[in-house]
């Protein structure tokens, strides 16, 4: 028997709002990368302007969360859920900011031809966005394994980001006229690396909601042990990683 129907409804509305914001920032990243690759200035500008909408949803969620705390005094799992929501909304909002950052990179490179067509950046973007999608999926589905996997996937993002950095530095060394362009693209790579970090933060919050334990999933050595304890094989996550890099756009 559900006693606190009103409260339950408010909790699920809060979750829906978070998912809505999550979808929005994921789409923003899809558009931002599309604009960067095709050098579509209008689309890049739209991404930058639309970020205001993400901010509005964020404030709405924060107000709702504070209200829930004040009026319903949640306890135990509910309390963890509401506390985690406050953290998750901030991570999502930052992820949105990074889409806008990439839009600004595109804007600053208007009219310049690329040294070579960007391939790694779209790849990095889809990997990071998949992590965001998976993190939100684990949130909705109470899926701890998926949350842990998200944190694991962060390594691949870091590796690719590293690779892009090396490549950009090579470009700078070989052609000084490309320094500005390479620097801007480096910033885009950095923004995407941060997106993956925020996805990992969300995964950690999901883990907290589900287990009551605040655990730094991002630290690899711990993640490794945890991964094994959840009955996941090393090969599982490699397959998963491959899938995540092969895939294009993802949504929860």
């Amino acid at each position, binding site marked *: 028997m559900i006693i606190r129907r009103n409260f339950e409804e408010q909790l699920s509305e809060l979750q829906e709002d978070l998912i809505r914001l999550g979808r929005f920032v994921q789409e923003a990243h899809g558009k931002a990368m599309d604009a960067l690759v095709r050098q579509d200035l209008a689309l890049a500008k739209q991404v930058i302007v639309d970020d205001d909408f993400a901010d509005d949803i964020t404030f709405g969620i924060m107000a709702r969360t504070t209200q829930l705390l004040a009026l319903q005094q949640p*306890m*135990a799992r509910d309390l*963890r859920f509401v506390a985690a929501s406050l953290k998750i909304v901030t991570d999502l909002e930052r992820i949105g900011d990074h889409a806008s950052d990439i839009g600004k990179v595109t804007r600053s490179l208007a009219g310049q031809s690329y040294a070579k067509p960007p391939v790694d950046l779209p790849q990095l973007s889809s990997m990071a966005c998949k992590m965001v999608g998976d993190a939100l999926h684990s949130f909705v589905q109470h899926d701890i394994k998926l949350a842990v996997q998200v944190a694991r996937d962060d390594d691949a993002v870091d590796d690719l980001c590293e690779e892009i950095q090396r490549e950009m530095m090579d470009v700078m060394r070989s052609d000084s006229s490309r320094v500005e362009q390479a620097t801007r693209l480096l910033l885009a790579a950095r923004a995407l690396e941060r997106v993956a970090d925020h996805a990992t933060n969300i995964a950690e919050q999901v883990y907290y909601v589900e287990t009551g334990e*605040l655990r730094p999933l991002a630290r690899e050595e*711990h993640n490794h042990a945890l991964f094994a304890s959840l009955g996941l094989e090393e090969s599982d996550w490699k397959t998963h990683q491959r899938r995540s890099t092969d895939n294009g756009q993802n949504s929860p």
Partner: protein
Amino acid sequence: MNTSSISNLADKAMPEPSTRKAEAPSARNSTPQFNVAMAAAGEQNATPVIVEAEKVDLFYGTKQALKSVSIPFHQNTISALIGPSGCGKSTFLRCLNRMNDLIEGCRTEGEVTLSGENIYAKSVDTVMLRQRVGMVFQKPNPFPMAIWDNIAYGPRLRGIKNKAVLGEIVEESLRGAALWDEVKDDLKKSALGLSGGQQQRLCIARALATKPEVLLMDEPCSALDPISTLKIEELMRELRSAYTIVIVTHNMQQAARVSDTTAFFLLGELIERGASAKMFTDPSDKRTEDYITGRFG
């Protein structure tokens, strides 16, 4: 314990700074998990046990109201007993100073010790016991007499007749109950003229006058307004340094605010007991979770 000092939050609940420092270098290599419960669990071990209930069964006639309840209460801590009406929490509280003896047909089995001595032993004088284990009730119940006489009542019963000594006890007790400043000029006035919150603090002062070791509080704030409630809660936190407090409350937020440990009762059974920080963020038992999140039923 593999608790690392990941968060400053942990500091408050950690047992001792010295142990924490010793653990810190290795923490990096051990499994880093911050669990409020594990951290807070250390706190209740810091002081010795003063009252201990061991497998207490209680029957009202043939009806069993408590089923093998065992709880140790540590010195200078506040323990909250929570649970739905009829779960046995007040009955259990009253076991701790044998108030149930006054109920006809009530039979208690098992053992309750106060500083190691069984309070249910035949040799125990219950009047003396209740001086050592004082009680404050749901509704303020001052005696219909002057404020001064209310407080002096217990000590007089103990044979103290010297007015100066009694006066000292009265002042000390009223100060202890954070009431002195409000009533010091009206000590000869009737206690019944005080507000509800003041009356309840008077009752606490009256309990303190017999110099108890343990204070039992049976929903001490349920008849009070929010401000008086906060005053009593603040007072409890102050009294904690000198007394051990056990409180029964229906108000979960109150239990969370004031207590160090919380015990959850259901149908006469102790379901779960632990550090309040753990109980209200991450209880172990599904029934506790359902009750404190309001999904009970």
